[in-house]
């Protein structure tokens, strides 16, 4: 029978996880499928039912509900369902109904199990939990490492080439003019051989050698050679080259093996550039390092502000090079902190030395090493206890305003909640700061804490770290013993919940409402950060970064086996969706935001996103249960709130 002509196979091959199956498997699935039509509002299965088939939506739409009757998910053409409980051999935890007239394909359990055994990608897809996310997160990073990046990506410009008869002095002048550290030496030729190439002048050339600044030093100057000597007499003729489609890794090995610093990159035989060992080092670390050194060289706020375009470019490059969210976050945090440090240096130059020692601390995402490209300002000043408000505050106010305006000029929006050092409340001596934190922890109140959440991510970026450390220690010591504080923080962390996922071009909300975009920060990364912070506070962690906090949490018994990893992958995945979305915005000349449109999410990505939201959802529910507010405390808080409003 000519299955290959069948529509079934065609359709399956367009949707995950079938899209990557081998042809033989598609044929088999298409020939063993069973089909049934369901008018709108038919029941497909009820909770508790035993499921023996994987279901696939050929046309129409299906709604999956929890036992409680709450909407769990809405599915459309190409989606699969009913397989998780089937594969685990347990009764259905959900019920499913058609929303529209639908045609459903059924695949028997035995067939799906056989497919899982044979095809790892497929089984990874249908296996539940963080496993699938993990695979996806790892794939991102595999795709971009040194092994798969081609060396031509490191070539930034054409090589400077001279003929071997050129005098050394002229060659050196060329190197100066193009500010390069190496030249290629070529000779015209009429013979064709392995090193001949056709130049842009349509003549044939022979690559005969290379001259580097090091050659000039060790061979020319050291031996007192006449600057008019032709290049051909001193150049190195031992040419080690690499083909442009080799991997960066291979290029690096070639250099190390041959002990050379410069490596001509050839496209077939034509030189297309020269790669230096430092290019690779730069590629491998952060291109942002160069930006950072540039920041410290700026002599004015204007100079710093001009660099903000470069910050964006460096961000896009990092993302395109496949950096993970930790690398991107750290790079952006380093850049942001460097800008603040430089601003403070410039401010001190203008205002004179500070009257008493101080520490400038950043709060929130910058403190966590997780800012994104559109982060706004969150900072505060801790002053030595010798601070005398009347005598000293004028200085610190001016300094704080200088930093605030400087950062605004560099693209960091002013904090809407006025959590900035320019606000006198957040410009206080250490003793006052200690009392702030004691108040928050000893006498918590969710509303009160809502705006102070961000103070529990704090790091010193400039000045005296001894003024910030005691605060971090205070938090780590006391928070674990303040159940009411943890409960209040947990309650706040539950204020933002993830959506269910996507349905066609909509985001599906719990109550079944549709929206046409999703704020991936508000609905994804931020609630996850909040959640991890609560657990980190509970276990006395001093870490600020979400991943480092998860490491600390993992040393305790706070979370069930495997949950830590799931949170880690969910956070990485959500962060990367956000980061890539912002990089795409910048590349298409739009202002980067956090609003991801379902249209821009691939079918595979949808499944992963949905799963990350699920991880967050489960973790939130656990948190609510783990840090309950004692009923008497709740009454007390309510009456206090009432007391304040009257």
């Amino acid at each position: 029978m000519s299955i290959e002509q069948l529509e079934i196979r065609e359709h399956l091959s367009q949707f995950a996880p079938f899209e990557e199956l081998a042809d033989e498997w598609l044929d088999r699935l298409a020939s063993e499928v069973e089909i049934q039509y369901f008018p709108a509002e038919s029941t497909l299965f009820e909770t508790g039912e035993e499921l023996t088939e994987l279901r696939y939506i050929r046309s129409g739409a299906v709604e999956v509900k929890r036992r409680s009757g709450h909407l769990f998910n809405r599915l459309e053409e190409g989606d699969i369902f009913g397989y998780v409980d089937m594969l685990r051999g347990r009764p259905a935890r959900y019920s499913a109904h058609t929303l529209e007239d639908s045609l459903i394909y059924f695949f028997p359990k035995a067939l799906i199990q056989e497919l899982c055994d044979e095809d790892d990608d497929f089984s990874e897809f249908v296996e539940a939990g963080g496993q699938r996310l993990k695979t996806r997160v790892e794939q991102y990073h595999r795709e971009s490492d040194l092994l798969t990046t081609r060396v031509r990506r490191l070539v930034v410009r054409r090589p400077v080439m001279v003929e071997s008869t050129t005098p050394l002095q002229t060659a050196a002048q060329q190197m100066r003019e193009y500010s390069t550290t190496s030249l290629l030496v070529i000779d015209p030729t009429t013979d064709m051989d392995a090193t001949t190439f056709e130049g842009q002048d349509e003549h044939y050339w022979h690559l005969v050698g290379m001259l580097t600044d090091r050659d000039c030093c060790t061979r020319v100057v050291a031996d007192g050679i006449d600057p008019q000597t032709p290049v051909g007499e001193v150049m190195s003729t031992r040419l080690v080259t690499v083909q442009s489609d080799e991997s960066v890794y291979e290029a690096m090995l070639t250099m190390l093996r041959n002990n050379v610093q410069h490596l001509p990159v050839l496209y077939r035989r034509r030189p297309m550039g020269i790669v230096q060992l430092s290019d690779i080092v730069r590629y491998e670390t952060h291109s942002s390092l160069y930006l950072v050194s540039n920041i410290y060289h700026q002599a004015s706020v204007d100079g710093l502000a001009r660099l903000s375009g470069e910050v964006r470019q460096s961000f896009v490059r990092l993302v395109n090079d496949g950096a993970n969210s930790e690398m991107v976050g750290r790079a952006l945090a380093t850049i942001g902190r460097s800008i603040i440090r430089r601003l403070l240096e410039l401010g001190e130059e203008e205002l004179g030395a500070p009257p008493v020692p101080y520490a400038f601390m950043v709060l929130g995402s910058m403190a966590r090493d997780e800012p994104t490209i559109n982060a706004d300002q969150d900072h505060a000043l801790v002053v030595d206890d010798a601070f005398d408000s009347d005598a000293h505050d004028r200085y610190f106010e001016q300094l704080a305003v200088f930093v605030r305006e400087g950062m605004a000029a560099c693209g960091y929006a002013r904090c809407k909640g006025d959590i900035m050092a320019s606000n006198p409340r957040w410009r206080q001596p250490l003793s006052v700061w200690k009392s702030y934190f004691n108040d928050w922890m000893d006498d918590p109140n969710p509303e009160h804490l809502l705006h102070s959440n961000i103070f529990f991510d704090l790091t010193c970026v400039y000045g005296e770290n001894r003024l910030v450390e005691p605060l971090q220690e205070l938090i780590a010591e006391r928070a674990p013993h303040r159940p009411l504080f943890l409960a209040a923080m947990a309650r706040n962390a539950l204020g933002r919940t993830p959506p269910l996922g996507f349905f066609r071009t909509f985001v599906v909300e719990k109550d079944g409402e549709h929206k046409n975009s999703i704020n991936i920060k508000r609905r994804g990364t931020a609630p996850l950060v909040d959640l991890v912070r609560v657990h980190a506070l509970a276990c006395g962690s001093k870490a600020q970064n979400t991943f480092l906090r998860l490491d600390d949490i993992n040393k305790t018994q706070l979370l069930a086996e495997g949950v830590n990893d799931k949170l880690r992958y969910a956070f990485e995945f959500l962060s990367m969706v956000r980061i890539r979305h912002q990089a795409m915005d910048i590349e298409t000349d739009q202002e980067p935001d956090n609003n991801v449109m379902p249209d821009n999410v691939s079918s595979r990505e949808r499944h992963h996103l949905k799963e990350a939201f699920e991880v967050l959802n489960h973790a939130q529910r656990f948190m609510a249960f783990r840090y309950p507010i004692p009923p008497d405390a709740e009454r007390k808080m309510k009456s206090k709130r009432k007391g304040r409003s009257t």
Partner: protein
Amino acid sequence: MRLPHWKSRQRPNWPDYLADRAKRVRHPMLKQFFSEMRLDPDRPIGETPMVAFDLETTGLDAGRHDIVSIGLVPFTLSRIAMKESRYWVVAPRRQLSNESVTFHHITHSEIDGAPDLGDVLGEVLSVMKGRLPVVHYRHVERPFLDGAIRERLGEGAVFPLIDTMSLEARRHRRRRWVWVRRLMGRPPASIRLHESRLRYNLPAYQGHHALTDALSTAELLQAQVLTHYSPETPLKTLWS
């Protein structure tokens, strides 16, 4: 053809006809086929095994044209099992014209070496055995199969079937309001397979492959019955 009440508006008395045929036909293959096709007119459609079938032909006139492919999809109201579906390309005894090639995409080379319908007829009838056939537009499938069998076995085979096109026509062509629509200049609703399917939110398929069309017909019947009738509807209200 010896069909009771064939031209009348009344539906034929199929049980009597089938019993009569089972007695009269001489060829053992047909005798078995008819004797196993015991279809109670009051039997609910939801309990009836069916088989969707589709023929691709060299043209529309059973007298001049011939069958080139056959698709069979056994099913019930609740399941279509592709594993049991069958498809054959057969060599037409009459010439394959170039126009028809562009229509059903079966080429001369595919037909070279294809068996004669007579060689696969046993298999075809055994898949159909005991199942109520379902077609879209019976006025092609019925006379073509009847003619082809008559040519090979010396006697024909006409049997009851469900015609999804006529079920669709009942809703869209035989109502009084259709005339009102026509008076108002609205075109009648199309009852072709593709257009009919779209009314039930069934996916658009590439037509004119006997197996795909048979599958399309099976899906359409499920949709029609579940939308306008019910699994309890007796066969007699559906067949023709």
